[in-house]
C-alpha cells in the first residue's frame, strides 16, 4: 500500500537536540547526502497530497525522527474548524507517525475563507474558550497530544485581558496540550508590544514546554518612525534571541530545538551551522546544571 512506512519505532521520539526545518529547496540534498541532523520538522500542509513529495517525506521519515508542524488548522477561528483539513492532517499523522505534532495560537479562517497568515487573537476569555475547544477537538481527531506555539504579533487589541503567557498556560492546563516555545517569537512580540521577555518565559509552565523554535527576523522602520520586528524566518538567529534561548534552556531544561528558515532559504550548511550553535548552547547549559549539582 502506498504510504506505508516501516520500522517506525526506531525513530519515533524527537530527541532533546537541534533539528532543522526541512523545506523543498533541500529535499534532494537530504535524500542524497543524508546529512548528520538530529531530526527534521516539516509543514504538514505541504504533504497533504500524494506523488513525489510524499515519497520524499516517507524516505526522510525512515532515517530521521520527524515532527509535523501545522500552519492551517486555524485553532483560533470563532467558527468551527475545517473538518476536511483536520481529516487530512489526521490521515498524514496516521501514515507518518511523527514524533511531535504542533500548531499555532492564531487564526487564519473566517467566513469559510483562508486568509493565508497566522493572525493575532484578542487575549480574552471568549478566545480562550474557543481555542481550548478546538485544541480538544484536534487532539481527539489526531488521537494524540499536540503542542501549541506562541505567535509573533504586530497588533494588540484593547479588549485583551489576559497576558499571552497566561493564556498559553491556561490552554495547556485546561486541554492537556503541550507548548512549543518559539523564542524568536517571544523576542519579536515583546519588542513590538513592550513586554518583558523574561516575564514571558517565567510565565510559561516549564513541564508543558516540549519543543523550542529558533529563527531569524527583520527589523523595519514604519512611516511614523517607530520600529517593528517582523518574524520573516529570513535571517540567522539574532544575538538577543540566542541570549534568550539560553534563558529558556535554563528554565525549561534541554528541549528539542528547531532552526526555521523560510524566506531566501540559504545553503544547507548555514542551517547546519545554526543547529550546531543551538547544540553547543544546549550542552553549555547542561554543564551549568552539572556544575551546580556538584
Amino acid at each position: 500500500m502506498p504510504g506505508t512506512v516501516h520500522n517506525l519505532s526506531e525513530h519515533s521520539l524527537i530527541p532533546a537536540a537541534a533539528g532543522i526545518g526541512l523545506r523543498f529547496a533541500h529535499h534532494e540534498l537530504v535524500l542524497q547526502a543524508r546529512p548528520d541532523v538530529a531530526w527534521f520538522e516539516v509543514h504538514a500542509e505541504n504533504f497533504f497530497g500524494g506523488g513525489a513529495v510524499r515519497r520524499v517525506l516517507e524516505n526522510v521519515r525512515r532515517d530521521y525522527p520527524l515532527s509535523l508542524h501545522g500552519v492551517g488548522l486555524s485553532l483560533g477561528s470563532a467558527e468551527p474548524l475545517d473538518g476536511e483539513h483536520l481529516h487530512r492532517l489526521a490521515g498524514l499523522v496516521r501514515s507518518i507517525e511523527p514524533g511531535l505534532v504542533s500548531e499555532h495560537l492564531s487564526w487564519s479562517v473566517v467566513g469559510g475563507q483562508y486568509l493565508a497568515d497566522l493572525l493575532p487573537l484578542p487575549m480574552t476569555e471568549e478566545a480562550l474558550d474557543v481555542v481550548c475547544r478546538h485544541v480538544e477537538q484536534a487532539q481527539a481527531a489526531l488521537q494524540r497530544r499536540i503542542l501549541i506555539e506562541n505567535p509573533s504579533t504586530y497588533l494588540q487589541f484593547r479588549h485583551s485581558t489576559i497576558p499571552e503567557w497566561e493564556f498559553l498556560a491556561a490552554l495547556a492546563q485546561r486541554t492537556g496540550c503541550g507548548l512549543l516555545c518559539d523564542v524568536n517569537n517571544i523576542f519579536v512580540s515583546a519588542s513590538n508590544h513592550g513586554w518583558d521577555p523574561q516575564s514571558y518565559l517565567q510565565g510559561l509552565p516549564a513541564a508543558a514546554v516540549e519543543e523550542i523554535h529558533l529563527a531569524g527576523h527583520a527589523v523595519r522602520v514604519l512611516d511614523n518612525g517607530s520600529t517593528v520586528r517582523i518574524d520573516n524566518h529570513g535571517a540567522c538567529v539574532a544575538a538577543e534571541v540566542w541570549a534568550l534561548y539560553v534563558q529558556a534552556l535554563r528554565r525549561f531544561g534541554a528541549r528539542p530545538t528547531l532552526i526555521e528558515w523560510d524566506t531566501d532559504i540559504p545553503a544547507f550548511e548555514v542551517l547546519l551551522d545554526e543547529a550546531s550553535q543551538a547544540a553547543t548552547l544546549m550542552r553549555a547549559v547542561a554543564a551549568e546544571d552539572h556544575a551546580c549539582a556538584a
Partner: protein
Amino acid sequence: MPALLELQLALRGRLFAEASSADDAPSLDDALLAGEDSALRLAIYRNTCMSALVNALRLSFPAVQRLVGADFFEAAAQQFIRASLPTSAYLNDYGADFPGFLSHFAPAAGLVYLGDVARLEWAVNRALHAGDALRLDLTGLAGLDEAALSRVSFTAHPAVTLLRLESPADAIWRSVLEQNDAAMAAIDLTGGPVHLLVERDAAGVQVRRLGAAAWEFTAQLCAGRPLYAVLAAGRHAMADAWLAEHLAAGRFVQFYVVAPSAGDSRL
C-alpha cells in the same frame, strides 16, 4: 468590545480591501490598540496575506507568469484573490477558477491562448499534488454476471485530467517553461484544437496529446459512462488498444456497476 467572530470578519475586510477603498469597520478601529501605528502594523499583515496567496498562484501558474510578466501577473492575481479567497488552507487546491478569470480578464484579451495555458497548468498542478491511489484490481470483474458487466464504469485516478483546448496550449506551455523562443515562434497558434491527457507516472507529470477519437473515448470513461455504452456508441476500431493502455498506465483506480435505470448513479 466586538465578539471574536465580529472582529475576525472586520479584520478580513481590512486585510483584503482595496487600499483606496479602505473598508470602514468601526468596531475594528475601536478594538485595535494605538491609532496611527495600528494602521501601519495592520499593513504588515495585509502584505503578508496577499503575497502568500500571490505566491501560491505563482507556483501553480509559472508559464502564465512568464507569458504576461511578473508585474502583470501580480496585478491580475491580486484582483482574482480579492474576488475569490481560498476556501481551504490547503493552498495546492487554490486557483481552480484562475484560468476562467484570466479568460475574461480584459487587459489580457490580446493573449487569446492565456486561459488555455492556465487550464493546462491547473491540470498539471492537480496531477502533481493529487493523492496517491491504488491500481485498479480487475479480479473483481470475474464475479459479475453479464448484466452487471454491461454496466461497469470506471473511476479515473485523481491525477488524470482530460482537456480539449482551442489553442495549442501544450506546445506554448512547453516552450515558455523551457524558454525556447525558437520553438515558441514556430508554433502555429491556429493549430488547435488539441486533445490532452494530463497524468502522473513514475517519472512525474506527463502531458500527452491524443487523437480526437481516443480523447473522446477516454473522456467518456473518465466521466463515468459505462464501458459497454461507450463502446456501443463509438464503434471505435482502436478501443481495445486504448483501454488496454489506460489499464496498463493505471489511469483507472476503481470500477463500479451503474444502476440499470439511473444512467450515472453509483451503487
